[in-house]
């Protein structure tokens, strides 16, 4: 089956910043994204776990977004600017999709 190259962006962002990050995605014209839960983790700011916790502070979520290379470029700059003061990381990998018009 014919597939088309796109990009898969995966960002681990702090819960309190999530809303701003997804707003940025929308502003940059992505056609969709999904937010996935993260249970626990470790990084330069130490370990954390969501279990038992009632505050969003120090908790991460993962935002997964399939998008086109053209949309990605300008978005990365802005994501970098937004997240530079916050916890979390962004990575991008190549992927193939079935319906190119959807991204």
């Amino acid at each position: 089956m014919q597939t088309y190259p796109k990009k898969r962006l995966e960002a681990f962002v702090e819960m309190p910043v999530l809303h701003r990050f997804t707003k940025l995605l929308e502003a940059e014209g992505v056609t969709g994204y999904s937010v996935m839960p993260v249970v626990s983790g470790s990084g330069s700011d130490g370990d954390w776990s969501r279990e038992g916790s009632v505050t969003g502070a120090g908790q991460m979520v993962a935002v997964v977004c399939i998008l086109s290379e053209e949309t990605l470029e300008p978005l990365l700059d802005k994501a970098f600017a937004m997240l530079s003061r916050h916890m979390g990381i962004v990575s991008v990998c190549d992927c193939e999709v079935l319906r190119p018009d959807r991204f």
Partner: protein
Amino acid sequence: MGDILNLAGTNLLAPPVLFFALGFAASFARSDLEVPQAVAKALSLYLLLAIGFKGGVAVASHGIDARLAATLASGVILSALIPFIAFGSLRAFTGLPRVDAAAVAAHYGSISVVTFAAATSVLTSAGIDYEGYLVATAALMETPAIMSALLLMRGANGKEANGTSGELWREIALNGSIVVLTGAFVIGWITGPKGLAEVSAFIVDPFKGVLCLFLLDMGLVAGRGMRQSARDLTPPLFAFGIAMPLIGGVLGAFASYLVGLSPGGAALLTTLAASASYIAVPAAMRLALPEARPSIYLSLSLGITFPFNLTLGIPIYILLGNIAGG
């Protein structure tokens, strides 16, 4: 004084404190015991809803007295004022960087609802009454401290804190815990004792048991936090975590005296002033002061001040309330 020692002893051996200790110990022994996050959030929601509702019903039953406005105002002032004292002390005695100090200061100006809940539960067991509108005061005290902390940072470097926009304030003021506490208070006020009678088998009867379960969870989380950030907590910071609630408490008691609250009400305003936030403020700090380290402010608030308040603090605040209250 005999009474207060008695109360302290009783409090230390009451189920809520013991369940907190169990959680703390389990966490330190690295047990895999944990309360799922969804359940912790449900317990917290329940406590907020129950406290808010009962406070509203109390206001509906006893009416508003002249002290209502004064109490609310003094709560706001305490919340706005305490961060300056906290910030000054931290900068003077602990060498904490400016941004961390401001973030910690915001936590101590704001309040902890579960500490408030534990205090009401001790008062209820001891048969001491209190003004229902203390609940509304609690809700109002959540946010002014955040404003003070941001002022402190702005004063610092002229540079604007991250996103001190209207949007930030909307997010802070509409934090879920504030909305439930306030909303349930208003509902309790509207429906009064008749409404309470319909839901009391859910809201009143199991309250203390649910509090125990939530404190088990708080113990687990506090213990985990302490285990992970023990190295960040220098002796001066540790001392701050004990001294600051006492300072806040004394201010709260003084305010209660000025306002003329009853002994029970004074104990609660004292407790509010002495307690430190662990839900709304940490989330707000991640937005407003992202450079401040959560490991510092969460460890201080949850790992030191909360256990201190739960065990020794509350009896002290009840004593202070007794002295200050009419």
